[in-house]
């Protein structure tokens, strides 16, 4: 597991596929780094994507700061007619959704391909 908690490592990339935006995350999302994620979401909202996929395959840890940021993104998407899909959650990351009973509030998929096909 990476020992780095460099905030810059949280955003690994952004890809566009038509009306779909894929945001790739990684590293550790905590009270130090969630502000980076929040700012990135605000940038992406301006594009008004039909589908916003958050690829969390490389996320090693996330606490409630990160979860709150994703909840904020989910609420924005619902208000603006976009779909938010989460992809590639390791169990150690998925567990915080389950503990907070948010695993059914989000659309969660094992892969990007699966998310795009639904």
């Amino acid at each position, binding site marked *: 597991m990476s*020992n780095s908690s460099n905030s810059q490592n949280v955003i690994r990339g952004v890809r566009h596929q038509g009306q779909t935006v894929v945001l790739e995350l990684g590293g550790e999302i905590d009270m*130090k780094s969630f502000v980076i994620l929040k700012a990135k979401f605000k940038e992406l909202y301006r594009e008004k994507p039909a589908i916003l996929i958050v690829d969390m395959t490389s996320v090693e840890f996330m606490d*409630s700061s990160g979860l709150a940021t994703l909840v904020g993104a989910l609420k924005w998407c619902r208000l603006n007619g976009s779909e938010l899909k989460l992809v590639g959650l390791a169990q150690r990351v998925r567990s915080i959704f389950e*503990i*907070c009973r948010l695993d059914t509030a989000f659309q969660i998929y094992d892969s990007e391909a699966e998310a795009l096909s639904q």
Partner: protein
Amino acid sequence: MSKIDVRKSESLRNSQIELRILANPNYLCVVRTAVRQTAGIFGFQEDKAESITLAVVEALTNIIRHSYSGSCDKPIIVGLNKICYGEENRSAIEIVIRDFGKQIDAETIKSRDLDELRSGGVGVHIIHSVMDEVEFSHANGCGMQLRLVKIVV
């Protein structure tokens, strides 16, 4: 005071492992690594060690945000112990977290209603969900103490 002091030594509470850090979010990763590794050494499987780590991080985040109002230069002490817990003397991890901020009524530290979809305020819920015992109390002099226990399954 050194910024980070990780050692096995006698402390005020004779913790087997004690971390003394400043309340700087940059240092949370150090605590995560230490708690994760210690939980593994104490017999927890990876998924349980991760959950325990999450609970500790939530507690520290609450201290930084609420007890210290975001100040990064105040101390937090995290003690980690392997204990025998309960009547059956089951192996468990005890984590004691001590801050030096304001003292509040422990009864007011509660989980919020999760039925409402909103961001924030779930740290206490996470702590209670993960750990087998959660006890908030006033520390000697100033600040709060949080005692967490989880039994090795």
